[in-house]
């Protein structure tokens, strides 16, 4: 056996004899995982979120979301402003679904006020909320394509979204932060011709929806990228308290619009206006990224059904209940949860009879849905990490509030 020098020994140490008689060499080469900070300025985090990744090459071994870059004290502001003044702040946490936020807050205050909402106002609310759901899911769908490197579906989605925003602009003058659904009903009646335009939109959108489905959802590469990626089992989904498409994507049949109905959703459901789409593991496993995005894409069509149902039974009438100029909210507390495009949006308001709430708490779906990425990301590839973040469809404005 040749002589082993000291420096060679450093690199080729004495072998360890394994039980089978094989020799095992331990090489003194340092390897360590790469720590990568994805965000707060990163195209895939959909805002100013930071995900600290620990990666072994392309393989993610640990992921930790960091929040708070967009914190604007929304809940504290709720304690310092009057009831109605808080409404514009609700627009700003989930800025993609401002109508839903308006509705959630308004309904929480209405629960304390015990005010009756006129039927026309309820129907206009439903139309606005569902159109907003479509607009929000269009962003989710489009940006998800963007996350996976498909640029064009994003622009297609925004083409229809643009029309929706124009529809919203016609009814309330704002494109993103509406403050339109207010306590007691809606701010004003729909302008002449608005309902007809919504109907026209529904017809056109139905055709376009097929286009989206064919362009992205059944694209071979898209399916390969999303199926069997980021699988959330039913148990995991329930354990983490997921709601909305994240929960339904895992096959749990739960939708607040059907199971704890508000507005006129009970009637709509009984009339067969909508169903609750569930992930079925069609392309891969139950609860993978494809299922989640599929639920969103299907929900657009269901939302269209609800809008059509509302348009079918809308009639003339007042759009604002008897609430008065200054709200006199009796002391008490209320928690109202509605189905936001991202899941359960709960508003808890506590009144001491004063001008504003003494506690205003928001249960945001994005915030609750985000926590699971820490569990499902390890073991995936870097590109899958992006696909998983995209499939949670978080809005950072709402996780941070």
């Amino acid at each position, binding site marked *: 056996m040749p002589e082993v020098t000291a420096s060679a020994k450093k690199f080729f140490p004495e072998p360890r004899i394994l039980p089978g008689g094989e020799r095992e060499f331990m090489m003194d080469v340092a390897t360590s995982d*790469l720590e*990568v900070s994805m965000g707060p300025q*990163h*195209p*895939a985090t959909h805002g100013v979120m930071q995900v600290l990744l620990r990666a072994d*090459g*392309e393989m993610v071994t640990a992921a930790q979301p960091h929040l708070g870059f967009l914190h604007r004290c929304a809940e504290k502001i709720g304690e310092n402003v009057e009831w109605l003044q808080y409404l514009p702040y609700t627009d700003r946490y989930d800025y993609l679904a401002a109508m839903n936020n308006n509705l959630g807050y308004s309904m929480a205050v209405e629960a304390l006020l015990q005010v009756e909402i006129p039927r026309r106002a309820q129907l206009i609310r439903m139309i606005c909320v569902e159109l907003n759901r479509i607009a929000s899911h269009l962003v989710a769908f489009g940006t998800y*394509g*963007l*996350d*996976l*490197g*498909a*640029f*064009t579906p994003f*622009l*297609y989605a925004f*083409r229809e979204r643009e029309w929706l925003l124009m529809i919203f602009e016609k009814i309330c003058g704002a494109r993103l932060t509406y403050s339109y659904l207010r306590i007691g009903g809606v701010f004003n009646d729909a302008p002449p011709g608005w309902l007809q335009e919504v109907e026209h939109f529904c017809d056109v959108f139905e055709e376009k929806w097929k286009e989206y489905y064919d362009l*992205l959802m059944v*694209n071979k*590469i*898209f399916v*390969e*990228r999303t199926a069997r990626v980021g699988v959330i089992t039913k148990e995991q989904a329930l354990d983490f308290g997921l709601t909305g498409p994240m929960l339904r994507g895992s096959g749990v049949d739960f939708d607040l619009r059907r199971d704890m109905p508000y507005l006129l959703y009970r009637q709509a459901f009984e009339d067969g206006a909508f169903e609750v789409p569930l992930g079925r593991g069609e392309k891969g496993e139950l609860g993978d990224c494809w299922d989640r995005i599929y639920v969103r894409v299907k929900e657009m069509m269901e939302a269209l059904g609800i809008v059509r149902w509302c348009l079918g039974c809308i009639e003339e009438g007042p759009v604002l209940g008897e609430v008065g100029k200054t709200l006199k909210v009796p002391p008490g507390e209320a928690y109202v949860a509605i189905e936001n495009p991202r899941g359960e949006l709960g508003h808890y308001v506590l009144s001491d009879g004063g001008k504003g709430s003494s506690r205003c708490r928001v249960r945001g779906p994005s915030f609750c849905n985000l926590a699971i990425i820490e569990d499902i990301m390890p073991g995936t*590839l*870097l*590109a*899958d990490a*992006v696909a998983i973040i995209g499939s949670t469809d978080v809005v950072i404005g709402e996780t941070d509030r």
Partner: protein
Amino acid sequence: MIGLQESPEVAAAAAAPIAGGGNWTLHFLQGITPEAVPGWILPIVTASISVGVVIAMISVIAMLSVWLERKVSGHIQCRYGPMYAGGWHGWAQTIADGVKLLTKEDMVPSGADKPLFMLAPAIVLGAIFGAFVAMPLAPDYFFADINLGVFFILGMSSLTTIGVVMSGWASNSKWSLYGAMREAAQVVAYEIPLGISLMVALICAGTFNLIDASEAQRDFWGMGWFIFKNPFVIPAVVLFFVATLAETKRAPFDLPEAESELVAGFLTEYSGIRWSFFFMEEYAAMFLMSLVMAVFFFGGFESPVTYLAAESMGLGYDHLVTNLLGAVTLIVKSMMGVLLMMWIRWTLPRVRIDQVMTMGYKYLTPLALVCVLGAALWEAGKQAIL
């Protein structure tokens, strides 16, 4: 002409007739230079002029391609793209952008390996310029008539990978490093099917020279393209094209610069004119690869148009008009390839790194080998029967 006789190559070049091929610039200079000028100056001047022509040509091609990409993407996405700069459909937008990029601050990130960081764009661009040297401009006009021309082109275009890896390492950014590593892995995986699928056409052509390969497709009224001559060329074209996409970092294989994953990959830390060097390389490489594809699969300079000019009008293949028509034919064919790449980029999502590797090693390489075998048997059979 005393000086010329000292160098055998130059003497040979001078002896060859213009129409028979060669460098027109050299011939032209020889015609107008007084005898007092030493002969060794002429090749150097010729080389300088040729380099200038190559650089100008690539710049124009890159600018045109960038503009085209923006228009194509715009129209695919229901919008117009640039419309104002220059008047007609924003044709001068790229020039305006180029001027903007030139005047931007030249930044090197702190902690970066400065020499490497600055060298990387130069290597990338220099390699692709070098590859263009073997590109024939017209059937009878070229800078370097290399009998292993296509090998030279593939080799030089692979050199760009070194520049990309260098840029990723030197940037002192983890995203850049990821991009560089992906580029290295991807190019290594796809060079193999790229070369093997090209072998199919080389078997048909029997030459590595681009001009000879083009000439071999001259029959059948200029439509004797290899893709029509041998059934195994058809799958080989598809394989070659897919490998080309990976080689030039185009979607769906744009993993080295995967925007939504790696911010901008190896380009993350680059800005200004250095950044635009990488872009010029990308578009030049797209054009070059499409050109190789056009020459070796789609008839090169040959088309019914050149046939009409050469045979029906009796001009012959050496005539200037035929040459010009040949050049236009080749550029149009190459631009078709570039357009196809753009169309794909704006339609498909990006594949994942493991899928890229699987596709390259597990499917493309064996399929390319099958194509080579089939094509070889077909050619051998053809020769045995005829």
